[in-house]
């Protein structure tokens, strides 16, 4: 019986080494990592919820949010999860051309999302909402900012996969690294599902008057 040959470097072991549970090291690690990220985003969301409606000064969410705009952003990110899973499908069928196409599309959708957020933040800033303005600014920018950074890292990974595939640096069956990056990407999407609901859709009463869009 061959030894456990620990894989290293770019090719994430197309032949998975034998493991005690039969599960891949990397996939197990990724799920434990995602579980720990639940704790991370949970803390940020909790902070936001705690301070909802407690800002002493304006602007308040009702003054500033552009729900239609952010809705488009949400659709974009959701769509990117679909294209991600189509990229994986293509990879599983060893169609690297189609895989790269869907990966690029996913990356582009991700960049659109981040770009949209940058534009949104700029708009809010000009309407008077800074990090330091009030609790809303504090919690909003930090929560969505952390999420945006996660999306950006995801985009980098997607583009790297495209590059590696073009340079023939992926194994013959490229589905494994695509699957791993996909898990991360979908996670970032489901965090947004929660953020969109908690931050944007659930109305925050402004002090001194009824809230909501």
């Amino acid at each position, binding site marked *: 019986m061959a030894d*456990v040959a*620990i894989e290293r*470097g*770019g090719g994430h072991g197309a032949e998975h080494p034998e493991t005690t*549970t039969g599960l891949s090291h990397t996939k197990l690690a990724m799920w434990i990592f995602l579980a720990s990220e639940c704790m991370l985003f949970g803390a940020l969301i909790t*902070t936001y919820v*705690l301070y909802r409606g407690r800002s002493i000064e304006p602007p308040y969410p009702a003054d500033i949010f552009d729900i239609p705009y952010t809705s488009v952003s949400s659709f974009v990110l959701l769509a990117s999860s679909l294209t991600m899973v189509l990229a994986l499908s293509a990879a599983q069928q060893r169609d690297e051309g189609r895989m790269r196409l869907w990966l690029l599309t996913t990356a582009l959708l991700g960049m659109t999302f981040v770009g949209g957020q940058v534009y949104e933040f700029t708009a809010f800033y000009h309407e008077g909402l800074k990090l*330091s303005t*009030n609790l809303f600014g*504090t919690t909003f920018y930090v929560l969505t900012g952390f999420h945006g950074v996660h999306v950006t890292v995801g985009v980098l990974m997607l583009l790297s996969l495209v590059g590696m595939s073009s340079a023939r640096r992926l194994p013959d069956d490229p589905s494994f690294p695509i699957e791993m990056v996909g898990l991360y990407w979908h996670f970032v999407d489901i965090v947004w599902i929660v953020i969109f609901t908690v931050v944007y859709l659930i109305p925050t009463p402004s002090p001194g008057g009824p809230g909501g869009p």
Partner: protein
Amino acid sequence: MATVTTARREGILRRPTATTGFWSWFTTIDHKKIGILYGATALVFFIVGGLEALLIRSQLAQPNGTLLNADQYNQIFTMHGVTMVFLFVMPMSAAFFNYFIPLMIGARDVAFPRLNAYSYWVFLLGGMFIYTSFFLGGAPNCGWFCYAPNSIFDPTVGPTFYALGLIITGIASTAGAINLAVTVINMRAPGMSLFRVPVFVWMGLVVQLLLAFSLPIITVALFELLFDREFGTHFFDPTAGGDPVLWQHLFWLFGHPEVYILILPAFGIITEILPVFSRKPLFGYQFVVFSGIAIGFIGFGVWAHHMFAVGLGPIANTAFGISTAIIAIPTGVKIFNWMATLYGGDLRFTSAMLFAIGTVTMFVIGGLSGVTHAIVPSDYQQTDTYYIVAHFHYVIFGGAVFGLFGGMYYWWPKVFGRLLSELLGKLHFWLMLIGFNLTFGPMHILGLQGMIRRTYTYPESLGLTFWNEVSTVGAFLIALSILVFLVNVVVTHAKGRPKAIDVADPWDARTLEWMTTSPPPIHNFDEIPTVHALDEFWHRKYVEDERTGRLVPAQAGAANGHEEDAHGGGHGIHLPSPSYWPLVASLGMPLLAYGVLYSWWLVGLGFVVALVGFYGWALEPSVAPEDG
């Protein structure tokens, strides 16, 4: 003897191949070398933290002390806590987990060897980063728990170093946690089910999961603290409607699992030591394992017992008081099982055994005071006094640190191929035991007499002088005992090397790491053993005589392997090569941190360095295995 090759390929920047020599320590991805790096670094920080403790005790020996002013005292006591918790106990535990988990489960390394190296370098750089604060405007001065709003309004740079430094070390620990958890779950030798795994490994698994789930919480808290200080946010700023109590919740949501992270490794270590030196199997293995899991789980449900005096209200206080009382139960289970292991055993009181027994007894004392804190009205009297300081030093020092030293005496021969002097070891133990109790025992009294914590001095009229003097004497005794330990190390390594056969299994132990040479070869085992039982090695050495029921040595060949142990025997063993990319990637961290303090250009540079490091890592020349 199996042929071992470390793979490489020609390239412009060649992946290193050397596994020996000075530079190999910078490129190593071998869990054993990384374990030694963690251990040596942790020991250095232990001495630094100890010197800080001596400064504290010197200042407090007399009323109106003038050795340290209030500001200096705040920095020293804060750094003492930060150092001992984050830069000594945790990395020393990591040293043992890194070195011994793969060996004890019959693996050749951890699941992600380069990530392992990355974790170490990030830890080292994070620790060094925090210490540069002394020279760059002032060390953290907010206490190891750095409560808001004091932490956000403090005009010195200290709390910013605190936030950045612990974010960095937290990343190191999180990566390490995922690595070791996957290792335990996924890399066990054939036949080694989870219930045939040594308790030390089980505790390792629980600790890694505790780390993975608790570190993100404090990471968020630290970012929120950092942003409040550097970017004008209001997370804990009461003037804008923020609530400083949020910091306390987030900190202790991490902080309480953290104390189990501190003690469970030591519990694991002594659970290995006690059976070996009682020549008896551990009593109630399954109970010890399940109680460890229970402690980890319930440990997430008690955090607000650090906040009884904050004003959460009677319902919250009651709920957390109850959960805190409940968590004493699984700990008690462990203690009874350890006692039952000793009972009727053929006891050998080696240094390791003394430290293990010391751990149990000292921890019980600390646990008893802990139980008194669980009673909320009683805690109102004790909180923020030296009674609490006594409690946590009894459990952390008396529990974790004694256990870690036990591990050092126990496993020194395996790691270094030499046995530490038993005479000096016993001297170390007794000096430390006496010094420790002299230092912290009186603090129970001082606390109940009203001496508050975190105070740089006290007036004569409070009548606290005598026990403070006693405590200071004790502290210097502890320092003396550590000196004895260091002398022991030097003297041991100055001597000639013992014969290999004398150090392979000097204690007549039970677990797999003792099956290989001391130190182990780079590939750990020539042949990965197949495991048929708990304490597999013991069962290969001894069988029960059918007539008398007593243990007799097994047949000569049995200890060296069964028929089916042909794992890798005739084949070449391929190990991953060393790599410098983890070190390169880790350098991004301090750059990022200094950048936040001084210049956005540095932040940019830090990102670039980290990215280059990660890409280099991912794209490292792949290995063409050499035939052999």
